[in-house]
């Protein structure tokens, strides 16, 4: 493969982790709940994926198992933040600590070994024969198509083209008004936070079953936090989230290629780039163009628990 093709192929593969996790966070934040547990959910999903395929050598099984673990943790998080109305920032940080610590504890036996079963590349007939783009876009594992095509389109349609989507956005903007209109605020918040948590954990499984593909302590390496930042940068919209994740994948791919080809930039600097880049991405647009603040604004009730009796 030539340079451009391998760059693009790696960009799609690397960006997929962030896109997947960030789509999960979009679901939670659109209904007004900040889930800062993405990093921990990804860690748990990553270790679950490897543990599951070690027991049953099927990548689909590993992926589903990590979705289930993510949903279970999401139920705990959503029960606390939506029904008990506990502080979302604290519960999210707690979820990150629990997930990071627990995954390292249960994952010790799997550390460093290659995943026994991984998602293989699927060559799409004809399309994969296109020069340059073909091998990069149409010769990826099946999850890549799910992440870049199926999920963003489906979520965009759901959120912006259906009555239910209007309702769920209303819950995030003004839960009191939504409640008055008869929308079940608590139930919608709960359901989307749990679904979002499952997706974030699935991103972890993508990491260990398709991208890296092995488990080691610290394999998530802050990607959960980058995903949270991408959601802000992309204005809480599914399609921009996926595009900005792809951009990030491209930056990561440049780092890989740079290291492989011995570009005269230190490996330390290259590994800092994603974090510094994310910080720049969430600060610079706001400074450069005041209008984006309103356009890309967070749901108005983001982070605020809803008490019907305190309306």
């Amino acid at each position, binding site marked *: 493969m030539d340079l451009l093709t391998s760059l693009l192929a790696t960009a799609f593969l690397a960006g997929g982790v962030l896109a997947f996790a960030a789509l999960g966070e979009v679901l939670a934040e659109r209904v007004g709940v900040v889930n800062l547990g993405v990093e921990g959910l990804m860690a748990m999903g990553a270790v679950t994926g490897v543990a599951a395929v070690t027991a049953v050598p099927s990548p689909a099984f590993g992926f589903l198992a990590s979705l289930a673990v993510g949903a279970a943790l999401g139920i705990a998080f959503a029960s606390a933040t939506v029904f008990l109305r506990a502080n979302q920032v604290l519960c999210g940080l707690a979820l990150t600590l629990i997930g990071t610590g627990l995954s390292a*504890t249960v994952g010790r036996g799997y550390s460093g070994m290659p995943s026994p079963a991984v998602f293989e590349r699927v060559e799409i007939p004809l399309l994969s024969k296109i020069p340059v783009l073909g091998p990069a876009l149409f010769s990826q594992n099946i999850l890549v198509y799910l992440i870049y095509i199926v999920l963003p389109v489906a979520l965009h349609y759901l959120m912006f083209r259906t009555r239910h989507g209007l309702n769920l956005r209303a819950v995030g903007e003004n839960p009191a008004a939504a409640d008055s209109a008869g929308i079940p605020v608590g139930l919608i918040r709960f359901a989307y936070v749990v679904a979002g948590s499952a997706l974030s954990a699935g991103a972890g499984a993508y990491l260990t079953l398709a991208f890296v593909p092995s488990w080691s302590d610290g394999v998530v390496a802050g990607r959960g936090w980058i995903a949270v930042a991408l959601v802000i940068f992309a204005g809480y919209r599914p399609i921009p989230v996926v595009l900005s994740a792809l951009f990030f994948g491209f930056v990561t791919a440049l780092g890989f290629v740079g290291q492989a080809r011995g570009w005269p930039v230190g490996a330390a600097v290259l590994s800092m780039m994603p974090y510094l880049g994310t910080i720049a991405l969430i600060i610079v647009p706001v400074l450069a163009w005041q209008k984006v603040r309103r356009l890309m604004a967070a749901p108005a009730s983001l982070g605020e628990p809803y008490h019907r009796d305190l309306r």
Partner: protein
Amino acid sequence: MVEWRLQRLPSAGTGAALGARIAAVLLALGVAAVALVLAGQNPFALAAQVIRATFGSTFGLEDLGLLLIPLLLTGLSVAVGQQIGVWNIGAEGQFYIGAFAAAAVGLFLPGSAALILPLMFVAGAVGGMFWILVPTLARAYAGVNELITTLLLNFVAALLVYYVATGPWRERGGVSNSATARIPAEIPEFWGLVHWGLPAGVLMALGFAALLAYSRWGYEVRFAGSNAKAARYAGMPVRRHLVTVMLLSGMIAGIGGMLEIAGTVHRLQGGISNNFGYLGIMVAVLARNSCLGVIASAAFMAVILNAGIVLQTQGLTSATVLAITGLILFLTAVGDEVSHYRIVRGKV
């Protein structure tokens, strides 16, 4: 008709909040004990071992004292930020950079300890402030959420320290190939291995508690923290206070890194901030962001952390301790909300 019902109070009472914390800790430890039983361990024997190893020997108490210092400083850092409603999740990174800056002074400036130690202190403080500068300006002038910017800088700081400790500053032919040479200037000890960083940290906590409680500045900061709009309306310089408080928060964490380098570890190495920044969030939350309470909750967290170290021989790791800490944090957050409620009997 008279019946029992729940009533939500605007703020939880101190007693209820304290009770919620104690209940959260006990419940989390209970869950950990059940997990240990399921893993085939005897939690009571382990607990006895922890208590014996921690409180039963001078050595254990010295370890506790040494762990207390960084937890005190990072906890105070988070608690000070919270006075004006700021989440400094970056204490971890500021701690790293404080240690990095102090190590730079200690390694490369010649001079007696009496001269170098104050310089290291200043370097640590300035390093911590520098590391929170961009998140501070972004929050104050562009409204960018400080949670994520401070957090992402933790990774950069950890990579930077790891890079210099294993690369350019590495001690050639040293005992470890991932640490710098020993820094000659050392904070003197006052009790066994415990150095004067501990009283210094306690004094800082007392100082900030007094400043916040009794000065005009402290009043305005707390006012702005509970209602920024009203504070602006009352003519208080909210943005200036925000900048000052965030820089102070970074400074405290940076000083924590300096004390760790100059008093406890004496070398810069990768992972010098052993999750102290994240545990500092725990310390501040358990203390309900009270600067005095931080002293007590840091002591508690030091016991938990030390328990993890004692139990490493039993197959537990620092990761397990992190998970248990997270569980305590989760249950505390729930308990905090529950303690807002009281049961009242009244007419419907």
